[in-house]
Structure formats: C-alpha cells, structure tokens
C-alpha cells in the first residue's frame, strides 16, 4: 500500500487567485493522478502526472488552468489558477503501484469566494 500526504486539507480563496496543492507519497510511484469532485458529483480525472514529462490532461482540462509539477517519483503539485467559484470542489491526488487499487490522499476542500 501507499501512504499519501496531501495538503492543504482545506482552503478558502478569493476569486482570481491561485492555490497550489501538494501530494507526498511514502514510496516511489510511476504515475500520479489528480481528480476533481465537484459538489454532489463523482470523481473526474483532471490529469495524469508523469515524472520527467509533461502531464497528460483529460478533455475539458488545460495546463494553463491546472498546471502540474512532478519533480520526482514521490511528489507532485496541482495548481488551480485564476480561481472562480466554479472551481470550488474537492481535489484528490491518487497513485497506483502496478495493477492494484488506487490510493488516495486525504483530499483538499477548496472554496472560492
């Protein structure tokens, strides 16, 4: 199993500002994933963060809005840029180790006012 430390746990931000969310894993993993869960909705994949290359974004998500860094095999950040109230969601990082279940960080509850 993998233990993921995600922070911040929650934040309230002003519109137009940016927030960077961090995830630290206790072991090296090839792929890390960032999900968004809007209020009352299920998890939607934002992007896959690969070490040593640019992140791969899903349809509807762009790098300018959600820049991702992956400087090594145990750490990644997701930035939510130029925030609006529609960005209010739970953001989750996730990892897999081979063909196993996905492990999730504790999540970041973001409220944009």
């Amino acid at each position, binding site marked *: 199993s993998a233990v993921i430390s995600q922070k911040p746990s929650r934040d309230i931000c002003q519109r137009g500002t940016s927030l960077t969310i961090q995830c630290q894993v206790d072991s090296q993993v090839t*792929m890390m994933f960032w999900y968004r869960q809007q209020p009352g909705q299920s*998890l*939607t*994949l934002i992007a896959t963060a690969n070490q040593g290359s640019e992140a791969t974004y899903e349809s509807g998500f762009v790098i300018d809005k959600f820049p991702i860094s992956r400087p090594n095999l145990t750490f990644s950040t997701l930035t939510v840029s130029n925030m609006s109230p529609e960005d209010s969601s*739970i953001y*989750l990082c996730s990892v897999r180790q081979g*063909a196993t*279940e*996905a492990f999730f*960080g504790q999540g970041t509850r973001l409220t944009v006012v």
Partner: protein
Amino acid sequence: EDKVVQSPLSLVVHEGDTVTLNCSYEVTNFRSLLWYKQEKKAPTFLFMLTSSGIEKKSGRLSSILDKKELFSILNITATQTGDSAIYLCAVEAHAYGQNFVFGPGTRLSVLP
C-alpha cells in the same frame, strides 16, 4: 461511450437492515472493477474484482462481479450508522491506461 452507472443514487435504511448497491458498466476492454467508501473526502478502498462469480468478503461487506451481464453488487449486512457514506464504483479499462472511470456513487444513510 464508456460509462459506469450506480443505483440507487440515495438510500436511507435503519440499523440492522441489509442493503444491496448496484453498479453496471459499459466499457471497452474491461480490466477490473473497484468499490470505494467515501465518508468525508478521501475514498477508502473496499474491493477489487476481476473475475466473475467470485465473492469477495470483508466482515459485513461482500461484493461480486458478473462480467457477462456487466454489473457488480455490494452487499452490506446488519448495517450500522458508521456505514453511512457514499459508495463509489470505479472501472478500469484498457482505454484509460492506469486510471479509472467512477460512477456517480450511492449515498447511504443508516439511521439509528
């Protein structure tokens, strides 16, 4: 279009009841189906199913997969208030690489 459907979307029961949650899917090149429990923010893993007809069991929870009919069920017996949560079904398919497609979830409320 690939999709994962869960039913019911919401369920209210009393302690001691038995519940069955459903997950059906339509994906290309199915790999596995997973169940998660989400109480606050982070989903916690329950089961991973890859083969039809083999029941997985953990305490009062059990789950089984039918790859012919493309569905899975999650059973919870003798429910407790601590079972109140959103139960998420996720499917892994070859088309999605290493990630999952999540269903909308079933919100279970267990009343004392």
